[in-house]
C-alpha cells in the first residue's frame, strides 16, 4: 500500500510539471483571454487630433506674468526621459518669464511620483507637466493640484479621468494611427504576395500597445493591399516584451520556434527591436521587414545588415520626445489664460523609411544606441545629454 502510495507521490512532481505545461495548450482558454480593452476616446476624436504642421512656437503663449513650471516624471533613467527632459528645459528657456523648478524623477515608484507632485505644488508651481507612468493611481493627486489652481498637463500616457475636471488637458501622440501607419507600410513592403506579421508590444496590458494593435487590425482588415497579410497575434493581443531587449530576444526566439515563416515584425520599440533582430540572426532566419520608433541602435542595425540581407527593410515613426514641448505650451497657455489652438493628440510622422530615398535611416556612431535622434535638439545638445 505504502509503496503504491509512494509511487504515486514519486510521480507527482513530474506529473505536476506535465499538467502545468499541458495548460499551455489551452492558449485559448479563460486565462489567456485578454481583458476587454477600449481605446481611449481621445485617440478616436478627430476634433482633438492634428498634424505636426499645426504646432506653434511657445513664444505665442509665454505671456507676461512670471510663472513657475515643472516636469514631474514617473521614471527618469532612460534615453527617452532624459531626452524629453532636455527638450522640456530647452522649450522653457525660450520664455524669459518661466522659472523651471527642479526636475522630479518618480523612480518608477507611484508613491514617490505622488509625493513629487505634492512637493512641486507646495513650491508654487503654476504649470505642471506630468508623465503619469502610474496611470489612474495618480489621478487624485493630479485633480488635487488642478483644483488648487495649477495648470496640469499629463502627456503621452493617459491617466484616464476627464480633461477640465481632473486636469487641464491630456497631450499625446496618436497610438492608433501609429499602428495603422506601420500596418500600411508592412503591406506595401511585402507587396501583393503578403506574408505573416507579428506585433510585439511592451509591458503586459499597457494601453499604448493595445491601442496600436487596434490600429494595425483595422488597417489590415480595411486596406485591400493587406489582403494577403496575416497577423499571427491572437486578436487584440500584443505579444509582451516589456520593451526590454533581452526579453524581446527571448520572445522572438519563441516565435521563431513556433512559426516557420515570419515576414514582418511590427514593434513599438527601437531598443527592444535590437533583441528581436539578434534572435533572427542567431536562428539563421532571414530578417523580415521591421517597424519601430526611431532609435539610433535600430538605424545602425539596419545599416549593418542591409548589405547581407536585402529583404530587410525598416520604417520608424518618431519617438516624439518633443511632445513634452507641446505639453509645456498647453500648461503655460492655461496658466496665462491664453487660448491654445494646437491639437491635443498629434499624428506623428515617419522619420525613417528604407524604401523611401528621402527618409534613409541614419546611424550616428558617436551617439549611444538608445539615442533618440528625432529629438528637436542640436547634435551638441544630444551629445551633452548622452555624455
Amino acid at each position, binding site marked *: 500500500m505504502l509503496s503504491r502510495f509512494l509511487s504515486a507521490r514519486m510521480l507527482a512532481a513530474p506529473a505536476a510539471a506535465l499538467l502545468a505545461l499541458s495548460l499551455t495548450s489551452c492558449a485559448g482558454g479563460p486565462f489567456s483571454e485578454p481583458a476587454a480593452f477600449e481605446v481611449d476616446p481621445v485617440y478616436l476624436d478627430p476634433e482633438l487630433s492634428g498634424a505636426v504642421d499645426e504646432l506653434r512656437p511657445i513664444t505665442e503663449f509665454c505671456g507676461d506674468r512670471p510663472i513657475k513650471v515643472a516636469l514631474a516624471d514617473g521614471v527618469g533613467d532612460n534615453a527617452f526621459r532624459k531626452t524629453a527632459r532636455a527638450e522640456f528645459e530647452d522649450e522653457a528657456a525660450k520664455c524669459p518669464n518661466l522659472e523651471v523648478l527642479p526636475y522630479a524623477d518618480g523612480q518608477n515608484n507611484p508613491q514617490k511620483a505622488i509625493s513629487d507632485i505634492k512637493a512641486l505644488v507646495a513650491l508654487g508651481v503654476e504649470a505642471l507637466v506630468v508623465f503619469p507612468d502610474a496611470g489612474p493611481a495618480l489621478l487624485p493627486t493630479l485633480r488635487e493640484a488642478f483644483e488648487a489652481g495649477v495648470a496640469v498637463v499629463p502627456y503621452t500616457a493617459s491617466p484616464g479621468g476627464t480633461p477640465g475636471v481632473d486636469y487641464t488637458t491630456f497631450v499625446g501622440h496618436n497610438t492608433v494611427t501609429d499602428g495603422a501607419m506601420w500596418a500600411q507600410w508592412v503591406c506595401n513592403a511585402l507587396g501583393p504576395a503578403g506574408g505573416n506579421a507579428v506585433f510585439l508590444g511592451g509591458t503586459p496590458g499597457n494601453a499604448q500597445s493595445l491601442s496600436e494593435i487596434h490600429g494595425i487590425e483595422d488597417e489590415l482588415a480595411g486596406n485591400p493591399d493587406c489582403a494577403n497579410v496575416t497577423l499571427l497575434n491572437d486578436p487584440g493581443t500584443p505579444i509582451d516584451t516589456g520593451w526590454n*531587449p533581452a526579453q524581446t530576444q527571448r520572445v522572438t526566439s519563441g516565435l521563431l520556434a513556433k512559426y516557420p515563416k515570419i515576414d514582418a515584425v511590427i514593434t513599438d520599440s527601437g531598443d527592444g527591436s535590437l533583441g528581436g533582430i539578434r534572435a533572427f540572426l542567431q536562428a539563421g532566419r532571414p530578417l523580415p521587414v521591421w517597424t519601430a520608433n526611431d532609435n539610433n541602435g535600430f538605424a545602425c542595425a539596419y545599416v549593418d545588415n542591409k548589405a547581407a540581407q536585402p529583404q530587410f527593410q525598416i520604417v520608424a515613426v518618431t519617438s516624439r520626445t518633443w511632445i513634452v514641448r507641446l505639453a509645456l505650451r498647453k500648461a503655460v497657455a492655461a496658466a496665462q489664460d491664453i487660448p491654445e489652438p494646437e491639437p491635443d493628440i498629434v499624428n506623428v510622422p515617419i522619420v525613417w523609411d528604407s524604401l523611401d530615398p528621402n527618409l534613409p535611416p541614419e546611424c550616428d556612431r558617436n551617439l549611444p544606441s*538608445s539615442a533618440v535622434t528625432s529629438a528637436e535638439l542640436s547634435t551638441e545638445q544630444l551629445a551633452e545629454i548622452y555624455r
Partner: protein
Amino acid sequence: MSALTSETDTRPQTGHTTLLQRIRTDRFMPIWLLAVAVFVISPLIAPGSMTASALTAMLPFAGVMAIAALGQTLVITHGGIDLSVPGVMAIAAVCVTKLAQGTGMSTLMCVLLGIAAGALSGLVIGLAVVWFSVAAFVASLAVNSLLTGVVLVLSGGFPGTADPAVSAFAVSSVGGIPTLFLLAVVLVVVAHVVLKQSVAGRRFIAVGAGVPAARIAGIRTSTHGVMAYVLAGIAYATAGMLLAAYLRTPDLQLGQSYQLTTIAAVVLGGTLLRGGISSIIATAVAALFLTQLGQVVLAAGASTAMQLLIQALVLAAAIILRGVDWRRFVRLRPDSQTQKS
C-alpha cells in the same frame, strides 16, 4: 553524485542502490527528472521548441542563470540569502560596456574591474552579515540599492555598448553549442568538484552545516562566511558581464529577473535553505529547467499571465513536493513492523 548521495542519505548503504531508491532518497534527483520531463514534453507543447535554433537561443540564457545561481548556491549553503544579484550584474555590465567605451580601457582591465566590483560588494555584504550580524537579506538589499545608484551615476542612465570583439565571443558557438553555455558548464563543474572534493570545499560546506561544530574542528568560520558572499559576487559579476556581452547593448535592469529566479533555481535544485546541504550541479540543472520552461511557454504562445501562472504552478508543485520527507516514508514500513512486533 556519490558525494551528494552520501550527504543526503545517512542510512547504511547495504547492497546495490537501485535507481528507484536513488530517486526516493537523493534530494537532488527530482530536478533531473523535471528537467528530462520538460525537454520530453516541450515538442508536444510547442513543436518548434526543440529545434536546434530554439535550443541555441535558450542555452546562453540558461548558462547565465546557472552562473548567477552558482553564486546564490554558495550563499545558501551557508544559510544566507543574497538579493544583490541585479545590482552586481548591472555594475559588471556597465564595466564591460559604458566604462570600456568611455575610458578606452582594455577589455581585460574592464573584466577584472567588473569582477573586483562583484567581489567588493560581496565583501561588504559578507562583513555586514558575519561580523555585524546584519540579516543577510537586509545587507544584500542595501548593497543592491547602493549598486543601483552607482550604476546610474556611472552610466548616466544610458547603457553602453559592448566591444564588438567581446560580443562576438559571447554569441559564438563551438560545435554548434553556444560558448556561453559551455563556459557555464565548465564553471559549474569546476565549482562542484572544488566544493565536493577539495579540503577547502569540504571546510566550506562544514561551516554551512554548523558553525559551532566547524569552529570546534578548527575551521575559520568567519572567513568562510565572508568568502561565500565574495565568491557569489564574483559569480553574479561574471553572469552580468557575459549577459551584457551577449546582448551587446544591455539595459540597466538586465539582472532584475535573476534576483528571485536564482533563489528559485537553488531551492528547486534541492539545496537546503537552512544551509549545509547543497549541489551546484543540481542548481545548474534547475536553471536549465527554468529557462526551458520559460522558453516553451513562450513558444506555445501563452499570454504573459499564463506564462507566469504556469511557472508559478510548476515551481510551487516542485517545492511543495520536495518538502515531503521521502525517506520517512521509505523507513516507515520496517519501522512500523518493528513497533507492531
